[in-house]
């Protein structure tokens, strides 16, 4: 079991580092999120793996998992969320200021080629002519 968990951490770290080193902001945010997962799980396992023994005091309990790493990781998860949120908004800000999403502010780096458009799936869907946002208008307008 320990080997399995160590492998999981390793795979997440590899993926996280690789994505963190990419040039566009979105993969970087994904990469850092993955790294945060890896770090959280790593910290959590420092209390060793225990199955079915939550750290809730109970006279009938046979033993307890280590509560200290759990408490640390709990806040770490929330902080990681705060960091991810901040990062992604920073990415948006950079996009707004620089006009692109390259981490160095380049429109197209020397080692990149423009993304090829995938084939359009169903031309029939083009009939809709309006654009909307995810959550911009209030619902009054939709009411019949």
């Amino acid at each position, binding site marked *: 079991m320990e080997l399995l968990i160590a492998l999981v951490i390793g795979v997440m770290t590899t993926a996280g580092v*690789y994505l963190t080193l990419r040039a566009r902001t979105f993969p970087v945010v*994904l990469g850092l999120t993955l790294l945060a997962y890896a770090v959280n799980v790593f910290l959590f396992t420092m209390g060793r793996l225990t199955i079915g023994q939550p750290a809730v005091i109970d006279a009938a309990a046979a033993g307890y998992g280590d509560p200290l790493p759990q408490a640390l990781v709990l806040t770490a*998860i*929330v902080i990681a*969320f705060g960091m991810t949120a901040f990062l992604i908004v920073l990415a948006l800000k950079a996009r707004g200021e620089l006009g692109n999403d390259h981490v160095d502010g380049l429109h197209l780096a020397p080692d*990149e080629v423009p993304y090829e458009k995938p084939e359009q799936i169903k031309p029939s869907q083009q009939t809709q002519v309006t654009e909307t946002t995810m959550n*911009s208008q209030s619902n009054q307008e939709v009411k019949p």
Partner: protein
Amino acid sequence: MSLLAFNLPIVALLPFAGAALAAWASKINRVASAWTAAAITILALAFLAPSMHLPFQGETLVQSWAWMPAIGLDFAFRLDGLALLFALLILVIGLLIIIYARYYLSNKDSMGRFYAYMMMFMGSMLGIVLSENLIQLVVFWELTSLSSFLLISYWQHRKDARHGARMALAITGAGGLALLGGVLILGNIVGSYNLTDVLAAGDMIRAHELYVPILVLILLGVFTKSAQFPFHFWLPHAMAAPTPVSAYLHSATMVKAGIFLLARFFPALSGTPEWMWLVGGAGLITFMIGAYTALFKHDLKGLLAYSTISHLGLITLLFGFGTQLAAVAALFHIINHATFKASLFMVAGIIDHETGSRDMRKLSGLMKYMPHTAILAMVAAAAMAGVPLLNGFLSKEMFFEQAVFAAETNAWAWLLPVLVTIAAIFSVAYSLRFIHDVFFGGEPKDLPKTPHEPPRFMKIPVDLLVVICLAVGIIPMFTVAPILAVAAAGTLQGVPPEYSLSIWHGFNLPLMMSILALILGVGVYFIRHKLFAIHAKLFERLDARVVYHAILNNTLAFALKITRGFDKGSLQNAAVWIIGASVIAGAIGFMSSSASLFGSREMLPVDPVTLVAAVALMIATVMTVVWHAQRLVSLITLGVIGLVIALGFVKFSAPDLALTQLSVEIVTIVLLLLALYFLPQKTPKEIGRFRIGRDAVIALLSGIGATLLTLAVLTRDFAPISEYFLENSVPGGGGTNVVNVILVDFRGIDTLGEIVVLALAGLGIYAMLQGMKLPAPNKDIYGRFWDTDNHPVIMQTLTRLLLPLMLLVAVFIFLRGHNLPGGGFIAGLIAAVAIIVQYLSNGIAWTGERLKTDMHWVIGFGLLIGTGTGIVSMMIGFPFLTSSFTYITWPVVGKFEVASAIAFDIGVFLVVVGATVLSLVQLGRLSNASHAPHQNSIPAKKQEAK
């Protein structure tokens, strides 16, 4: 408590409060800030007054509070004769300058800013002179550098002002660093940073092997601040400041701070050959260079600047003599210089103000237009030249006497009286030039303004100072003698030697030198035009500023070269360096350990369900990388990873973590989805094989390292420190859920820090998105338009029904948190999800109308409650954030535990809700803002509705 127990810190800190007040007062009315500043200064004087008699009684008042005892830093203030003299100079001359500046500043200048800076500077100066603790003194010393930077660059639109300010900051800031070093060594060898101990340990310090480094470092601080050679060149450039600033900084304060430090450390450091050569040498050179250069400056303020440098050199030279009498003479000259130089600067300001020019080649014959000012200028300039019956004469006589006395010390010292007489000749000449060029010599030509007398209150401060010059010069025994005596006693930390302040000492060598200087000085003035020509040929190009700029530019270029060597201006590059370095560091760690990689702890067996989940997670991770160019898809796989991790937490006995991970996962994905909308939908394809390969190798090595490290740890046994928490959770914290008790009780202060971070992240996101507009695509990557149905009715109906249920769950999770999995973090996330779902399904406008609470307030209240519970426990005498609990029995519910930690948990809850909702809603608003110009969907729908 008597006022004498705490008045000194008030004197020093009051101006800082005054700075804020003056800045605020300028909103009411321009003049209000001047009055505020004056009132604060008078108030500071009033606070100083009750303790003024103590130095006269030979007592030193020390007021001290422990601050950081571990590093020897006390919050300690001291009032002895020296401190009193300087405090009075700072406050009284400061008051006069405040009155003067109110008339000097034009309508275009911001009064509030001026007086705020002025007050900050005054407070920093008072802090220096009143400090008992040396580290605290250095702190105030740095504050004077900073606030003088603000003052010198007051006219920010002027390039010379910005340059002058930067130069002053660079020089005095570097000196301050050296001073800090000197003070740290000094305090270390004395064993105390308190002046009382340091001053008493003079013999020990002088005998110590580190004496010379200490002396050099402290003198670097002194010389840079007091514009001593070779650091004198910043002072003339600081003349770009408004004249009241120059009058204050270069008469009684800023440059006198260095001199003050010489006087302060006089008992501890003086009396050695090193002291004599370094201090005396720098003083003599500065004295001569300043006097000589002043004559050749055509700008009134330039002349005064070099004259200031020269007089500072004179004072430094006196301290350099190292005798007690010389120190008394130095103190006397400090007082005299402050009075006549402040008045001369103010006169220069008046002339500039009323004629529009400070160029002595243009100015002339102003006697006719401003006789009152002219008389003031003449008296002050005569005092500067050392004319009998004025204060400058008395201290100059004492100075000559010391020079003559020192001449007998060694074979070459006979040069000393000669050199100082030459410098004195030049100071007579430039003083004469200041008067004769400006006020006499025929009608002025092409002045920008017709000259006339200034407003009355611009002259009154000068009047007062000139009266002091006269009074001290004519009846020294009845005016300056008492304060000089206590200042001398404070400087020498003992009984001052016998000295005579009388005007007539008989016909002796010093008097001869004075007369010689006066006669030859007049002579030099009359051949000045020839000297100007010679000077222009020889020395015009000789400028220390050139050296300064060369050093500065070379340092910057060198730093830039090193930085550029590592940082190519690319984040990708920097990230490779960082991660690559940590991989190497990790590898070295593995290599250097001789222990076997894995321990012998028995592993748990693998069960099929976990295996499937783990494999799913790994596949999802790999897919995230493979599909990262298709952003939406990679987000889905990321969600899978998060969910499997939550399941893992369930499996491995961490229900709290599972709940947290689950709710965070939802919020994160929603957030990334919202953001994704504004990022380019396409990731360009990478073709750089080298970069991909290199990154893959680094990533793989990191992964292998992480795996090995985890295995190395997990295969070993360990002795956890968690036993304490498990044992004390119920008796100490009153809760059975140990994780929650740790969070809100045992490690409460960590949690407080973490919610502060979260709050800052939320506020930072809000600030960044404020007013931002981004291009929003109207089609997806396949060219399809978005769905028109923003808020599907089924989803609306369902989420509205769900809201109370979700909030109920949040409350339930919150309340049970102390005893069963749950708590503020998780409840906060659930409540946040409940609210966000409303925004998502019903739109911001609809939800905003119904939920009017501003999330800023929620965050604020959360932090307030969190900190408040800590402070309450402090107030009743326990350490910060100590919790207490009791059990009460409620009807129906039964026995229920109430812990103060619950209040803290409410704080956590509020911050989590506030920060999360604030970020997401602000992001949602962005889409409204970005769509505002082309809302073609709305008319279409309205038509439909009809």
